[in-house]
């Protein structure tokens, strides 16, 4: 690992697009300011690590783990009507073994989780948090 010493208000460059500035030093806490193109995601590493370990754990789930979820399904069949996005071949449901079949994207209900335009908090512009 490359180790550089910097004082307050000094900056290092990573490539020619990413700037990291030491904004403040208090005790054992360093505040960093990061300037980077918005296409470059900037996150605290703990966030990545926790998602990675959660993925790891989720990959161990078995079919039996899902037993007992029946009664929580949306009450009326109407709410489960598919919202077809690309009809045609995607809607065919081949018969498959084990009571599990190919699912169709876009059909998980009438009110899917919305996606909104906007910066993901924690992107470069505001990553200099605590």
């Amino acid at each position, binding site marked *: 690992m490359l180790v550089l010493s910097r004082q307050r208000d000094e900056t290092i460059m990573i490539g020619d697009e990413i700037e990291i500035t030491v904004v403040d030093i208090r005790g054992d806490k360093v505040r960093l300011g990061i300037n980077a193109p918005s296409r470059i995601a900037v996150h605290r590493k703990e966030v990545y690590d926790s998602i990675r370990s959660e993925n790891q754990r989720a990959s161990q789930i078995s079919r039996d783990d899902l037993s007992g979820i029946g009664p929580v399904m949306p009450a009326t069949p109407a709410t489960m009507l598919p919202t077809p996005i690309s009809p045609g071949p995607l809607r065919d449901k081949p018969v498959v073994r084990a009571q599990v079949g190919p699912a169709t994207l876009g059909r998980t209900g009438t009110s899917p989780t919305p996606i*909104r335009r906007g910066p993901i908090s924690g992107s470069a512009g505001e990553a200099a948090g605590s």
Partner: protein
Amino acid sequence: MEVRTTRFGTVNIADDRIIHLPKGLLGFGGFTRFCLLEPADDACFFWLQSVEEPSLAFVVTDPNFFVPDYSVPIRQEQADELGIKSLSDAQVFVIVNKVDNLLTGNLQGPVVINTLTRTGEQFVLAEKRWTTRHPLLKLNAAPNQQAMSA
């Protein structure tokens, strides 16, 4: 194509249903091709099954079933990367985990898929409001399972 799985045997998946996650899921970067399987009873949980590794599968759901005020922010660069021209072309899943008697969803790391191209990515949200273990629902005890099979 035939997809071998350890949980469901061999499943036949049309080539045009393969979902591509070019960056893989965090921690599973080597696996980029998946298919979506659903239980026969039209549940709100699906399996995101690796096409490449029979034992690799995740339970996923649309979190909006359980967390109505959840939404996923997307930057223009991310939309471009996934080829998402209209936000209605994208679909959000979260990976489900089982913690004791609770099913939880990883709302901090949603998987966003362009439903037209079936290309997706696991996002990393920094909003502290959403965690990797957001409670979705409590699993029911035995009586309810009996009711199901009745």
